[in-house]
């Protein structure tokens, strides 16, 4: 069985590679490369796969999942400038793909148990763009 919980955060970022010129950065990232940065309302969907615990009837206590999302993702990232305030994005370009993988790493370290595992995350940068990271394909 799959269960999915949604969370939102808003953050600013800029996508550019320091070793490249202004023109090269614009060629690769378009307006996302604008040096002063800009922001998005990110929407994160976290999907767990598992069986309901025979006693509680729950795959995972969703309150506990909410707390982990709050600690690992919302508190460190919400209303932050990712490049300046959220490692490793001082060194890694915070594209939606890289951000999704960082979120996967943070959550995969905290989620999982006898009955369930983190199965997939879907990160929306906006309504028209999202990235999926799926167990087994994440590496």
């Amino acid at each position: 069985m799959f269960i999915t919980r949604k969370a939102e955060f808003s953050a600013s970022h800029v996508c550019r590679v320091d070793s490249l010129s202004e023109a090269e950065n614009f060629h690769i990232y378009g307006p996302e490369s604008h040096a002063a940065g800009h922001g998005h309302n990110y929407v994160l969907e976290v999907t767990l796969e598992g069986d309901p615990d025979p006693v509680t009837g729950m795959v995972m206590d969703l309150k506990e999942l909410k707390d982990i999302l709050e600690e690992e993702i919302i508190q460190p990232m919400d209303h932050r400038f990712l490049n300046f305030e959220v490692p490793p994005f001082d060194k890694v370009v915070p594209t939606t793909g890289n951000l999704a993988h960082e979120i996967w790493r943070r959550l995969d370290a905290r989620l999982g148990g006898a009955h369930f595992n983190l199965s997939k995350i879907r990160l929306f940068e906006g309504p028209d763009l999202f990235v999926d990271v799926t167990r087994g394909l994440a590496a």
Partner: protein
Amino acid sequence: MTTITRRYRFCASHRLHAEALSESENNRVFGKCNNPYGHGHDYVLDVSVTGELNATTGLIVKLADLDHLVNTEVLSGFDHKNLNLEVAEFEQLVPTTENVVLVIAARLKKYWRIYFPYSSAWLSGISMQETERNSFEVAIPRPAATDSVKILNESVIVNA
């Protein structure tokens, strides 16, 4: 491996009518969608690309290239068009959303290498909503290595 999905929109009209069927059979099979004057939808098209994130850029493909492909090879010919009369594939093929999805997938696959000569990423899925109440989706397997034209070093993305 990561999958990125980009959403596009277009408006088009169509009529569901099979030449091989009689008037009454067409009416029975397609109902209101068989109206001889046609009707239209605001289609929502999700295009999924799967591949490795480039270590330097953090991208699977340059999104401007994906936009360029979808705009040039699909949207420019579909948006605000009558699919039966103005899109060549539907001269002989009923433009159900199932068939529209398959035609779009075929076009994107046909032109893929021209727009992404630098990347081993592939078109992994098409999903389309005809209305908010119905959607149609195809998953596309990774092409066999022999299908792909020589893949250039991914670092070309920086200079492309």
